[in-house]
């Protein structure tokens, strides 16, 4: 062996050391500085993070502000359309902490799912969809909190393109002028799981469901930490700062054992186009590269993730695999649902677990939650709606935690 070769033991030792990056040595410039320069030149308005905010460390050691209050909820079409307990849990958490928020009707999705699936759009249209939503948030005075991992990643990338290409800015501004909207770009693009992350100790303080017996595997969402990677939260105390800390830090704060598995970096298999029209790929990948590996290596009680596509794919892909006697059967929840459940949210009025396909009953039973009782309550809600006695559930029906300490 040549003297220049680093011995394997040393490599392992280095790998075991927490990573504490120096922002001065970041491989890419800080986009926020370029944003402020553009603002100084009158090219755009930077929407500043309002106080109160928390400061977190991102991949290259820079500081990111995460707003706590006055939030404009940029909802996710996949969550609201097919996993509504995801969104409901985020808003329920906001309400539990008395957060002032806007749940806008002046919002479209980012349309990024379609763009990544079909490419039936273009850069200028995509940036305009983003800027229209950002302008709508700015007009309310509330700060956008992005629910979808793909919207978050897509917007970060589009923001970068907008900043770096004057020709794109000029084309975008022309159409915004026509819409009567200012060109507004947020100082930070913030994912809801980052809000959950900075709130995790406050959530744990109000935890009413003991979760110490639970083992979970975390699937970090690709579009959260792979696209414009420098914006994701990293913490030397979580995985030695070598993976994103979001989700894992929350689970640990709630007393859950986070079990590692070898394919943690793999995507879920969503594929954007594949999940809709070519699911043989999606199912195969989700089962063979994620669920079975988790099952074999960690045998978790649940998988927790923080994006629309990941919950959909990992949850819905397990049914067909079961028919083929694959080793599946791991309930899939979003971090917001786990946090809400820990604080005693109703499993059906809030978490809306009946929209999930993989069996969640064993998880609730292990947590000591009498799900039959709460399902019976929810069935009464449904019956009352069907009889026309009430138009639907409201926050008044769902606000109260099922358990109090």
């Amino acid at each position, binding site marked *: 062996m040549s003297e220049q070769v680093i011995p394997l033991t040393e490599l392992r030792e280095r790998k075991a050391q927490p990573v504490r990056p120096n922002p001065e040595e970041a491989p890419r410039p800080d986009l926020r500085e370029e944003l402020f320069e553009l603002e100084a030149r009158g090219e755009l308005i930077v929407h500043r993070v309002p106080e109160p905010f928390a400061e977190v460390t991102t991949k290259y050691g820079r500081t990111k502000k995460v707003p706590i209050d006055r939030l404009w909820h940029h*909802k996710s*079409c*996949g*969550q*609201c*359309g097919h996993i*509504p307990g995801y*969104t*409901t849990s985020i808003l329920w958490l906001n309400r539990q902490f008395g957060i002032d928020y806007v*749940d*806008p*009707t*002046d*919002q*479209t*999705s980012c*349309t990024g*799912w379609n763009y*990544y699936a*079909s*490419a*039936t759009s*273009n*850069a*200028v*249209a995509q940036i*305009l969809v983003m800027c229209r939503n950002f302008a709508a948030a700015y007009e309310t005075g509330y700060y956008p909190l992005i629910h979808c991992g793909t919207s978050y990643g897509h917007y970060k990338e589009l923001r970068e*393109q907008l900043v770096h290409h004057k020709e794109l800015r000029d*084309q975008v501004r*022309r*159409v915004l002028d026509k*819409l009567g*909207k200012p060109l507004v770009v947020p100082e930070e693009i913030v994912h809801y799981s980052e809000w959950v992350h900075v709130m995790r100790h406050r959530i744990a303080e109000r935890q009413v469901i003991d979760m110490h017996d639970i083992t979970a595997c975390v699937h970090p969402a*690709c579009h959260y930490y*792979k*696209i414009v*990677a420098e914006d994701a939260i990293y913490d030397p105390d979580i995985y030695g700062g070598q993976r994103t800390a979001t989700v894992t830090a929350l689970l640990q704060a709630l007393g859950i054992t986070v079990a590692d598995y070898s394919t943690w*970096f*793999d*995507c879920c*298999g*969503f*594929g954007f*186009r594949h999940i809709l*029209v070519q*699911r043989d790929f999606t*199912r195969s*990948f989700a089962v063979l*590269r994620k669920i079975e590996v988790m099952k074999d290596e960690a045998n978790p009680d649940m998988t927790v993730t923080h994006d629309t596509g990941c919950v959909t794919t990992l949850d*819905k892909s397990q*049914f*067909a695999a079961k028919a083929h006697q694959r080793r599946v059967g791991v309930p899939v929840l979003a971090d917001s649902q786990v946090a809400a459940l820990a604080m005693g949210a109703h499993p059906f009025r*809030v978490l809306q677990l009946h*929209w999930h396909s993989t069996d969640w009953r064993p998880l609730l039973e292990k947590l000591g939650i009498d799900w039959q009782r709460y399902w019976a309550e929810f069935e009464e809600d*449904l019956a009352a*709606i*069907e009889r026309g006695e009430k*138009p*639907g*559930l409201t926050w008044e029906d769902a606000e109260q935690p099922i358990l109090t300490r």
Partner: protein
Amino acid sequence: MSVATWSPTKASGRYRDVPEDTKRQLFEEVKSDPRYPDFLYGCYECGICVSACPSARFYDFSPRVIAQALAREDVDRFYEILMEDIWNCAQCFSCVRCPRGNNPGGLVTLMREVAVRHGLEQAQQALQGYSRVIYKIMLKGNQVSPDMLQPDFFPDWGPWVREFSRNMSTWRKAIPVDTLRNVTDAAWRTDDKTLRELYTIWFETGNMEVIREVDEGLYELLVEIMEEELEAAS
């Protein structure tokens, strides 16, 4: 194996060959996108992108070959990739861990845009069955909605879909979020003004012309509905 010797022969006879000039023209269109220089810096041929790529595990697909072919401006290989490979990409962007700073997933996006703009048959095939999604996204600004969860489209999601389909109306009313409650044809309730602004974006950016290349009938339907909305408001 280098690009020069890589010969999958997977595509023989599956698509129409075109003159070299046409391939060059398509390549130049990809290359002229302002994002192209941000997505391609060269290639070390290290294969890190391939090791992280989900599609490489299940398809004859290689983000490394895509980066190499484009960096070398090998228009024959480029055309093969355009016709055969791009729709297999999962767009997860695991490949951006490239030590050279490449974004093969982004290059695929640019190539897909060109394939769609030119109405290439392979793009139309890849998007078969997808028109109802385009209809939804263009008109409602949402990719999916509860009423798209139908047993015929999602039989592999199990009996849950059938149960949902039977109970959709009641289940949607049993959601406490104001903007979601009782909404079944979209993910949430959106203002008419917001949708008109979205339609303006589609028209002003040439996005509707892109839809025409994919599905002319759908394009005509969408234009009729959108123009009616915009005219009624003005």
